[in-house]
């Protein structure tokens, strides 16, 4: 069972990386000035010695760091990510509550960016020296160079405030009480702006990469073979060039899919999308250690899962990989 052993190997490595990340993040986070007790004391508008001691004891902050780490790791190994005293909820519940929104947003953005990016890149590669090709590349460069939050702000302004076509923020219409299909449609409508905004940058990346990759593949011998067969250019582009050109894009896309999950902080903030990126930022600001560590853990887990998925897809796409060991 080479597949099974391969998967076991990857899982083993992944577990080690995850544990290392937990330890690293643990010390990183505890290196920050201030602690959750201080934040809560600050917010309460008053504080005294007893209050701080109570809080620190509840957070377990009265223990030495190694003890805290030991306890935390022990918890994680039994899938207990601790309790967010600040949010008064178990960390796992909090994360699982917010994760679907992020997955939906990044998934949509990923799909949009990948499909449109590859399409645009293909067109640009086929029209390499023509104005339409240059226009596509110019646009993609523009999207690539524009700060994401700026696009987001402008998108809200144009499409929500001025044109009033799309909702400006949020996940669903509050109080509309939609169910079933109507709810799905409502969510989809809310999804458009943030997903497109988040996807634009990556779309530009994929456009450029697809074009470069296609141009370099089109120099290869087998393309000449295909032409010598008398194949139509469209078939050559699609079947021979694009298929080979997509291989490096799979790798890149896999890397970025994972990164997107934790990287959507800005989009989630501007569009009030109830995702995990925002939760992370808030947890960081409030020094909600358990929550922050939990989010980091899940982000890393997702990155690793996406990497594995990428491997599988790559294996399906490229028959050569099965032979030579990864």
């Amino acid at each position, binding site marked *: 069972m080479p597949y099974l052993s391969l998967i076991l190997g990857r899982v083993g*490595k992944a577990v080690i*990386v995850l544990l*290392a*990340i937990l330890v*690293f*993040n643990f010390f*990183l*986070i505890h*290196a*920050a*000035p201030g602690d959750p007790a201080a934040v809560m004391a600050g917010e309460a508008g008053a504080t005294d010695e007893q209050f701080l001691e109570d809080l620190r004891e509840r957070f377990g902050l009265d223990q030495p760091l190694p003890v805290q780490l030991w306890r935390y790791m022990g918890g994680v190994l039994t899938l207990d990510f601790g309790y967010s005293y600040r949010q008064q909820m178990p960390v796992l519940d909090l994360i699982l509550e917010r994760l679907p929104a992020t997955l939906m947003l990044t998934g949509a953005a990923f799909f949009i960016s990948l499909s449109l990016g590859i399409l645009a890149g293909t067109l640009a590669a086929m029209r390499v020296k023509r104005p339409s090709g240059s226009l596509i590349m110019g646009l993609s*460069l*523009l999207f*690539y*160079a*524009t*700060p*994401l*939050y*700026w696009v987001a*702000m402008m998108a809200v*302004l144009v499409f929500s405030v001025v044109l009033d076509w799309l909702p400006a923020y949020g996940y669903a219409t509050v109080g509309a009480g939609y169910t079933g299909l109507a709810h799905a449609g409502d969510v989809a409508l809310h999804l458009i702006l943030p997903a497109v905004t988040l996807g634009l940058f990556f779309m530009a990346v994929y456009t450029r990469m697809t074009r470069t990759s296609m141009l*370099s593949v089109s*120099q290869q011998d087998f393309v000449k073979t295909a032409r010598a067969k008398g194949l139509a250019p469209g078939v050559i582009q699609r079947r021979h060039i694009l298929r080979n050109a997509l291989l490096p894009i799979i790798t890149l896309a896999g*890397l970025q899919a*994972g*990164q*997107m*999950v*934790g*990287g959507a*902080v*800005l989009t989630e*903030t501007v569009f009030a999308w109830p995702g995990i*990126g925002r939760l*992370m*930022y808030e947890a*960081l*600001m409030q020094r909600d250690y358990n929550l*922050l560590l939990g989010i*980091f853990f899940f*982000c*890393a887990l997702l*990155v*690793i899962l996406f990497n594995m998925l990428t491997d599988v897809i790559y294996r399906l796409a490229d028959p050569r990989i099965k032979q030579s060991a990864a």
Partner: protein
Amino acid sequence: MNFFKRFAQNRGALIGLIILALVVLLALLAPFLYPDSPWRMVQRPFLAPGEVAGFPLGTDTMGRDVAAGLAHGAWVSLLIGLISTVVALSIGVPLGALAGYFGGKIDDALMRFTEFFQTIPNFALAIVLVAIMEPSTVSIVLAIAIVSWPPVARLVRGEFLSIKHREYVEAARLVGQTHRDIIIKQILPNTLSPVIVLASLMVATAILLESSLSFLGLGDPDTMSWGYMIGAARTVMRQAWWLSVIPGVAILLTVLALNLVGEGLDDALNPQLARAR
């Protein structure tokens, strides 16, 4: 000379270079054009561009000269982009070189280390690092460098992996050159062109990243950067569009220019890729 000729053949790259030169010029001239602090409140707030003579780009929410901010911000943005890239290179290049050259266990260990940094989402890590070190130019540069070195390491490693089996490297081993000499004199110079191309893009990304951090309020409070200007203007976007548009366009142009230059470098440094064989 060949190199410059090839570079100049790419019209986009030339335009990019010109824009970049203008930005650099602006940054260099900032202390002379606007000797006063760009933080100085010098006129009524919210002057539109051209509304009052002497303030071609208007004033911001607090009556500070936008043009002065733009000039001084050019300096900061470029500097942050450059230095963070240099720092990232100085982490990524040696790691990638060692991993690629020695291979085996060293490669394994170093690549695990690199993967480790790639497993934590970039932007999230940058935010956490800046928050922990507290926002300052140094912490921002460090954070950007720390999140952007892994691709460098991977690129350099890949180049080393392919070049270390070139015959001239083997010849150098046979004549008894030390590992250090082989790495520095034989292989490194031949990995430079893709690294330079990547670096030009990294400067661009760093400028964007700095502005994103600024947008979240994690900028250096003592330095006027473009990112700061956009971040500060976002709440008044509706009253004073120019406050976010002007620095936004500045960032866009600079990043665009860096990308164009990067592409031009890519073409000029890898002529076989740019042209049909």
